[in-house]
């Protein structure tokens, strides 16, 4: 969930009305100040089609004891905020979880599955094919997407959903054909949150859908953007991974310079994973997890290699002199040796797992 601050609001108003930003900001600040003072005086604020804020007399509280009933002194003043009813309805919708079931072709079975997924708490929209689903996604923000068999390898749907910060907390479940290993991706794939293989009982997918809806509802309290992607160890997929990370960092809230530095650190990490971890073996995969919360962005890169002695390299990275290190390497006829030093300069926190095949890079959006 993104929070729109006054400076951003002023920026957008200024852009839309083509007015100078400082003046627009001053007008907004002044308006807020006046409203605050009016509320302090006990007056109501009414913003049509948006909200009514008013100060009311509190209601007396009745208490009953063995001695009898009595009315407690009410609070002197209570602030009430009422959102415009039409606006509330448009935000909350029907109040039901929205499930999008994407199938290659509508059939009797997809109808049965849709009716089983629909419940007292959720409603299901059935869509045919990847393109129709993408068109629908452009207009709405479902809570859960179920990709039927045959669409499990339709990469554009999870990619479209997860790349976008606003929709990334939508859960995706992909149904795979029997015997298909969803983890064996071709090139690079943005992963769904859950996979279920055929054959399965309808109750299984209903339970999975419910647990995913609950998980996502909980995780929305902590995370703003979550993307998991997996790539084969190939030069062109590594470039795709860098492009994807550059894309998601654009909406991270980091400054341009901080995003660029974070992307530099990621490039080093994924390059190390490919060269040193997976030894450029195309049959090995690299897993990347991007997490953004209100405080920080975290990128985790894991390879399928044996790891290395991270302590030694980290201590060299912290205490070493980049120029001397590079010259020593050059004199020895090799190259490299600066990767960890560069990453340490680019992020606020750098951690390896014990094995040394998973690196976590953290960059703070807001300093704590």
């Amino acid at each position, binding site marked *: 969930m993104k929070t729109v601050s006054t400076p951003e609001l002023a920026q957008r108003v200024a852009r839309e009305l083509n007015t100078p930003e400082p003046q627009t900001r001053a007008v907004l600040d002044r308006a807020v100040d006046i409203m605050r003072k009016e509320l302090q005086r006990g007056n109501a604020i009414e913003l049509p089609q948006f909200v009514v804020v008013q100060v009311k007399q509190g209601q007396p509280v009745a208490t009953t004891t063995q001695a009898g009933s009595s009315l407690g002194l009410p609070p002197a003043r209570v602030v009430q905020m009422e959102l415009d009813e039409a606006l509330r309805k448009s935000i909350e919708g029907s109040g039901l979880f929205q499930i999008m079931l994407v199938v290659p072709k509508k059939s009797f079975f997809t109808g049965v599955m849709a009716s089983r997924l629909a419940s007292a708490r959720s409603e299901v929209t059935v869509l045919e094919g990847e393109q129709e689903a993408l068109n629908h996604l452009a207009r709405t923000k479902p809570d859960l997407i179920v990709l039927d068999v045959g669409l499990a390898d339709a990469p554009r749907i999870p990619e479209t959903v997860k790349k976008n910060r606003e929709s990334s907390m939508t859960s995706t479940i992909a149904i795979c054909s029997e015997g298909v290993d969803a983890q064996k991706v071709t090139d690079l794939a943005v992963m769904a949150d859950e996979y279920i293989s055929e054959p399965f009982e309808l109750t299984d997918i209903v339970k999975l859908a419910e647990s995913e809806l609950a998980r996502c509802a909980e995780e929305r309290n902590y995370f703003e953007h979550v993307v998991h992607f997996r790539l084969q160890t190939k030069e062109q997929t590594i470039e795709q991974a860098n492009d994807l990370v550059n894309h998601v960092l654009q909406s991270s809230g980091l400054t341009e310079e901080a995003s660029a530095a974070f992307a530099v650190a990621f490039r080093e990490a994924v390059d190390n994973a490919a060269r040193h971890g997976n030894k450029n073996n195309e049959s090995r995969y690299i897993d990347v997890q991007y997490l953004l919360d209100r405080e920080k962005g975290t990128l985790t890169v894991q390879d399928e290699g044996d790891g290395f002695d991270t302590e030694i390299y980290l201590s060299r990275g912290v205490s070493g002199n980049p*120029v001397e290190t590079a010259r020593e390497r050059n004199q020895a006829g090799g190259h490299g*040796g600066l990767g960890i030093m560069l990453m340490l300069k680019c992020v606020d926190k750098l951690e390896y797992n014990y094995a040394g095949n998973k690196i976590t890079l953290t960059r*703070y959006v807001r300093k704590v």
Partner: protein
Amino acid sequence: MASIEFRVKVIKSPDGTTATLAEVDGSIDASTIQQFQQVMDKLVERGVKNLILDCTSVKYINSTGLGTLLKYSDTFESISGHIAFCRVPSKVMLVMEMLGFNALFNIVTDEATALRSFAGKLAPPPSVSVRTSPAPAPVAPPMPSMPPPVAQPVAPAPVAPPPAAPVAFPMQHACARCRVTLDIPAAGRFKCPRCSAVLAVEPTGRVRFFALKKSRPITVTVPCSMQVAASVAELAGKCAANLGFNGNSAGVVSQAVTEACKNVIERAYDNDANNVFHMLIAAGQGALTVKIADYGKPFDFGPGGTIHSDSRFASVVKSMDTVEHRPNPRGGNLLTMIKVLQQ
């Protein structure tokens, strides 16, 4: 297979200075480094002395590429040649700056400027091309980071006596600050790559080192003992007194540092005497800065969530003008406390 392409031509300035201009197209990283080195080696073999790398189309450079650029920068220096980088994209510049290599490279706006710098009409940018020879200079242990000391061209500190006759370049000279031997290729202004001391070398061979605005900070590794911590805090108080704080204010600084150390020992390390933390005390520019870095547990500041709302840091926050906390990139905590000297 990723590739890198070179378009090479010879250019000449109106005054007759010639150089080889190589337009580089592609990324300079692990996947292209072999190709890059092959072309560069060929240029050196052909006897190119002045090389300008036009980086307009360099999409990216990674740490491997950066190390290789340094290699060729050194190679050209060793053959009394020059290498310059022009039109460096911001993404590439960022990587150079992160490791401080921008201070070593001759980075110019365009080929005309590069030619002028080769001809000696343009002084090389400060802090270029000074090579350190292996020397037994002590290397500081990892400590909380501080901004590098800033040089000012006044009040020359240690000044080397001018030699009687002009000297031939390259020449060697010991760094006045860290004593490392510097290989100086030509007259100009340079920065010692080890300690960042700024020096000016005249054509006569006279070397001047510039004084620092800030004194060098004191760095201490402190065992998890309140007794030792109290002694170091007293040292911070004495530094404050030397800076001009009155006795009362210096005492307040000392107490605040003691309190901060107590928090580190008790909360980050659970009183485990086997641990150590690092402290940096810097006095200068009218303020005393104390930084403490530990690798223990991150502080839990309670409901307020900040150091300013934590009652156990209340006396520190009250005593110092600025108190900041941020997570240590290696795990643990980084505390920065600043007390400004009131004039």
